[in-house]
């Protein structure tokens, strides 16, 4: 009993370190130290748990820690910065599944003990234990398959497009109601054999629901989904904390749940959409009308001609999007930026909050390429100076520069804040082909009189420009 107090005190310290860690992650100067501090919190939480006298067998624990450390360490070391969204989604899914399994293991324990003995040991009524076990299983399961499916979409293993079909919403609602109904039954029944069956069906439905919930969400909305799943993995851990009556799980999980929710809200705001709209609208799955009868064709320009324009420009703004990540073009973009600076131009990078596939995706890529911090300009600061910019170079971005968001009320993205590339004197748009963007919308920017398309692989195009400037 005495030692339990010590353990709980150490958990308080761990939780405090998490709080400080998250706080420090919020500012550029302290972020790295913040991560280390939160890591230290995790370490002492793990170490003190290992000293718990309830633990009788260490060999599997050591094996589990070793295997997990090896896999996690290698993955973290090898991952390319462009694949960061996938990796975060994958880790997130693992965390969710771990919480599900913890709840499941606890239920197995109940099956061994019987409800009476278990409730006496936990000091909690049986209905409470069954509710939180079911919740931890449910949230963990949805997080797992949802994250895995998001991982598939992000890594291109499955189509990134939103998938909708007739009756989808009704089916999802049906599955959800079934999950709730089984949960109620699971809580009500004192019969362990029936409870076991209900629990397994519940797991299957939760896993199914995770996939179904992510299905109608398109690739462009991924930053929101990743944030939300991140929040869910925290809530799953928190629920698992209620299951085993552990303070540090409850606090740490809840902190993550709340902070993930904030990020989700920020992402939704950056797209001027509600969370419900992102989750349920099947955005981009339907084919859009071809705009307001504007049938001007996009005008292409050769790399050679683009070079002459860039060479004469005194201010250039790069606007990167997911296409830059796909083409792995961040390093050549940085080189081009440097050459233009040497040429006397003022060079900036305009970052839209939802550019890419996760919050802050572009910042990570450009930081990897060593682009100086002060050249990365946020949307609200770049837009006022856009009319004075000679050349705006859009690299694989689409919806975030679509002027329809500001002037076409019929557009699905109307009202979304954009980077006003169209106000620059000249706009170059680097694009792989003539297809539509992830959202499937027609981009009015492409047909404007001051816009010129440069078709082809972004990395190849920019390399050519770099060579021209060097030559």
């Amino acid at each position, binding site marked *: 009993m005495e030692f339990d107090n010590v353990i709980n005190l150490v958990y308080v310290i761990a939780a405090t370190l998490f709080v400080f*860690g*998250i706080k420090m*992650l919020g500012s550029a100067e302290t972020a*790295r130290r913040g*991560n*280390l501090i*939160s890591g230290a919190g995790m370490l002492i*939480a*793990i170490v003190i748990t*290992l000293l718990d006298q*309830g*633990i009788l*067998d260490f060999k599997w*624990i050591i094996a589990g820690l070793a295997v997990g*450390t090896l*896999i*996690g360490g290698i*993955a*973290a*070391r090898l991952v390319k*910065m462009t694949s*960061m969204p996938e*990796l975060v989604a994958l*880790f997130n899914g693992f*965390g969710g599944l*771990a919480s599900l*399994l*913890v709840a499941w*293991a*606890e239920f*197995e*324990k109940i099956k061994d003990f019987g409800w009476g003995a278990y409730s006496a040991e936990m000091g909690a009524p049986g209905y*409470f234990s069954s509710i939180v076990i079911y919740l931890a299983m449910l949230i963990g399961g949805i997080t797992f398959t949802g994250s895995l499916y998001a991982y598939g979409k992000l890594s291109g293993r499955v189509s990134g497009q939103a998938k909708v079909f007739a009756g989808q919403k009704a089916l999802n609602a049906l599955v959800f109601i079934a999950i709730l109904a089984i949960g109620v039954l699971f809580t009500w029944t004192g019969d362990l054999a029936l409870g076991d069956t209900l629990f397994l069906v519940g797991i299957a439905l939760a896993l199914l629901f995770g996939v179904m919930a992510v299905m109608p969400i398109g690739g462009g909305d991924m930053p929101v989904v990743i*944030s939300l799943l*991140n929040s869910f*993995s*925290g809530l*799953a*851990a*928190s629920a698992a904390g209620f*299951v085993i*009556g552990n303070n540090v*799980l409850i*606090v*740490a*999980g*809840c902190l*993550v*749940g*709340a*902070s*993930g929710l*904030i*990020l989700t809200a920020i992402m939704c705001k950056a797209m001027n959409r509600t969370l419900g709209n992102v989750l349920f609208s099947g955005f981009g799955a339907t084919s859009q009308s071809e705009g307001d009868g504007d049938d001007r064709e996009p005008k292409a320009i050769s790399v050679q001609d683009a070079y002459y324009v860039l060479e004469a420009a005194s201010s250039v703004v790069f606007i990167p999007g997911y296409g830059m990540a796909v083409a792995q073009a961040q390093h050549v973009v940085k080189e081009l930026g440097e050459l233009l600076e040497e040429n006397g131009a003022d060079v900036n990078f305009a*970052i839209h909050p939802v550019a890419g596939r996760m919050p*802050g995706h572009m*910042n*990570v890529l450009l930081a990897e390429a060593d682009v*100086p*911090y002060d050249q990365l300009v946020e949307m609200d600061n770049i837009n006022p100076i856009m009319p004075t910019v000679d050349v705006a170079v859009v690299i694989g971005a689409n919806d975030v520069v679509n002027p329809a968001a500001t002037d076409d009320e019929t557009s699905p993205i109307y009202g979304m804040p954009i980077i006003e590339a169209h106000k620059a004197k000249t706009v170059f748009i680097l694009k792989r082909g003539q297809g539509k963007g992830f959202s499937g919308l027609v981009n009015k920017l492409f047909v404007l009189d001051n816009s010129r398309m440069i078709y082809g692989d972004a990395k190849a195009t920019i390399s050519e420009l770099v060579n021209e400037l060097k030559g």
Partner: protein
Amino acid sequence: MDLVLLFFIFVLAAFLGLELIAKVPSQLHTPLMSGSNAISGITIVGAIVATGANLNGTVGMILGFLALVLATINVVGGYLVTDRMLQMFKKKDK
């Protein structure tokens, strides 16, 4: 443990979490997400207990072991990758 107390803790932690990151510059969104993701691997503590204490139930121990591996990947990978990212963010001498 007192259930009401657990809820109390939960609610307070929620408000704390909301307050903590209300204003984070967008360049830090990715590290913040992957860093907090690593924290959600705290479920590793539950996994350790489940693996070590479920001696009479083989199924429970296997489940605990799987949970432990997954949570460890989440924790170790999450912290390392966040650190790798933040390393790139350090101030450039220019």
